[in-house]
C-alpha cells in the first residue's frame, strides 16, 4: 500500500488562473499558480471550493494532470452540461481570477515510479487525466520503466492530450499508446473501434507476470469492465488500482 498521502491539516489555498488550454471541445485544462503548494504525487487530486458573494459554496474534486513542479498546477476539467462547477471553471473563469483549492488528496491511486514496475494504464475519456500525470512524470524524470496506455475515447476529436501523447510515444520506444474510438472513426482508421473488452486488454497488455500492476480510470461501467478484464487475464486484484467517476460528478 502507498504511504500516507496527507500530513497534517489540508488547508485551503488560493489558486490563480494563469491560462486556459482547450484540449477538446468538452475538456479544458486550467493552468494555475498556487502559492505555497507543497507538491504532490502523480495520480492525486484536489478539492476545489467556489464561494459566491452571498456565501453560497460548491465543492468538487478534480485530478491533477501534471507532475509536481513548484507552485504550478494543471487541472483538466470536463465540462458537464448540467454541471454547476465545471461550466464555470471552463467558460467563465478568466486569467487572473482566483478560487480556493486544497490537496493533494488520495494516497492510493498514485504511481510510485519505477518501484511499481511497468506502468499499465487504462483510461476512459477524462479518466486519462491522473494517468497523464504519471506519463508526464515518467517523461520528465526520465524513468526508464516501460509504459503502455490503452485509451478509449468517443471520437478522434475527443482524444484528450492527443498531440502530446503522439509526441511522447514517437520519442520513446518504451512507451506504447493504443487508442480505441468507440463512436466514430476517421477514414482509414486502423486502430480499435469498439469499447474495451478482455480481448483488447489481452492484445495490448499480454499475459501479466506476478508483479504486474495497472491503473484504471474512467466512468463506472468502463472501470468495471476493465478491472474485471485485467483480473481475468491474471492480474492480482490487489495490484489493479481503480478510480471511477460518474454517472454524476457534476
Amino acid at each position, binding site marked *: *500500500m*502507498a504511504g*500516507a*498521502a*496527507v*500530513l*497534517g*491539516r*489540508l488547508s*485551503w489555498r*488560493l489558486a490563480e488562473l494563469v491560462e486556459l488550454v482547450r484540449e477538446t471541445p468538452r475538456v479544458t485544462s486550467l493552468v494555475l499558480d498556487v502559492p505555497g503548494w507543497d507538491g504532490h504525487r502523480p495520480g492525486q487530486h484536489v*478539492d476545489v*471550493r*467556489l*464561494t*459566491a*458573494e452571498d*456565501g*453560497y*459554496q*460548491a*465543492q*468538487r*474534486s478534480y485530478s491533477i494532470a501534471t507532475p509536481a513542479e513548484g507552485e504550478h498546477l494543471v487541472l483538466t476539467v470536463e465540462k458537464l452540461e448540467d454541471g*454547476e462547477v465545471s461550466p*464555470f471553471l471552463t467558460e*467563465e*473563469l478568466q486569467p487572473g*481570477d*482566483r*478560487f*480556493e483549492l486544497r490537496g493533494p*488528496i*488520495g*494516497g*492510493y*491511486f498514485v504511481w510510485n515510479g519505477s518501484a511499481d514496475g511497468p506502468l499499465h494504464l487504462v483510461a476512459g475519456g477524462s479518466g486519462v487525466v491522473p494517468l497523464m500525470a504519471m506519463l508526464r512524470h515518467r517523461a520528465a524524470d526520465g524513468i526508464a520503466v516501460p509504459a503502455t496506455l490503452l485509451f478509449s475515447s468517443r471520437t478522434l476529436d475527443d482524444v484528450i492530450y492527443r498531440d502530446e501523447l503522439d509526441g511522447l510515444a514517437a520519442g520513446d520506444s518504451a512507451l506504447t499508446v493504443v487508442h480505441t474510438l468507440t463512436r466514430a472513426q476517421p477514414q482509414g482508421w486502423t486502430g480499435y473501434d469498439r469499447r474495451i473488452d478482455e480481448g483488447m486488454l489481452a492484445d495490448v497488455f499480454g499475459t501479466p507476470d506476478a508483479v504486474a500492476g495497472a491503473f484504471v480510470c474512467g466512468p*463506472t461501467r468502463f*472501470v*468495471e469492465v476493465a*478491472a*474485471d478484464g*485485467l*483480473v481475468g487475464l491474471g492480474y492480482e*486484484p*490487489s495490484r*489493479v*488500482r*481503480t478510480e*471511477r*467517476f*460518474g*454517472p*454524476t*460528478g*457534476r
Partner: protein
Amino acid sequence: MAFITRGFRGTRETDESGRIPPGQYETHDFPVLSAGPTPHTPLESWSFTISEDGEELARWSWDEFRALPSETITKDIHCVTKWSKLDTTWEGVSVDTLLDGIETGAGYVTAWSDGGYTTNLPLEDVTGGKAWVAFGYDGEPLEPEHGGPARLLVPHLYFWKSAKWVRGLRLMDEDEPGFWESLGYHLYGDPWREQRYWGD
C-alpha cells in the same frame, strides 16, 4: 474566511430540506467508488464473522445470515467525494442483532471486506440502531459494484465507512486506522462537521 470567486453564483439547487451537509450536493444517481476491482465471492463460500483478539465469537453462513431478522432502512447517504443521496432504501440486518449476546469491553470495530478493504469505527457508532449489514437496495439484491452480496451501512458517517463486500467485524480496544483512514482520510468522518481529511 472563504474567498469569494468573481462571477460565481452556482445553480442553487438549494437544500430546503436541511439534509445536505456542508460541501455536498444532491445526486439522483448512485455513483460507485472503489479502490480496486469488484470482488465476486460465491455465496457458498461467504460468511460473516465477529471476532476479538483473533478469536471468532460468532459466524454465519449466507443462509444463516439471511435467516436473521432484517429490517428496511430509509436513510440519506453522504460520500466524501461530495455527493449526497436522499431517502435511499436498504434491507439489512442490524449490527445490534449480530452483536446480541456478545460480551465485550471493546470500544471500536474494524470492518473488513473481500479485497482487503478495512475501515474503523467506534463501537457506539455501529450499535443502538445506527448500523446494518445490508444485502438489499431499492427492493433488489445488492449489486456487486455497490458492495453486494452485503455491505456495511453506517449512514450517519461518510460513506467510505459503509464498507462494501463486508465479511466481518473485529472488536478492537484501540481505534486503528483502516484503508482510507491511513491514506489521509479522517479517522471518524462526520459529514455534518465536514470531517473529510486528517485535521478536519
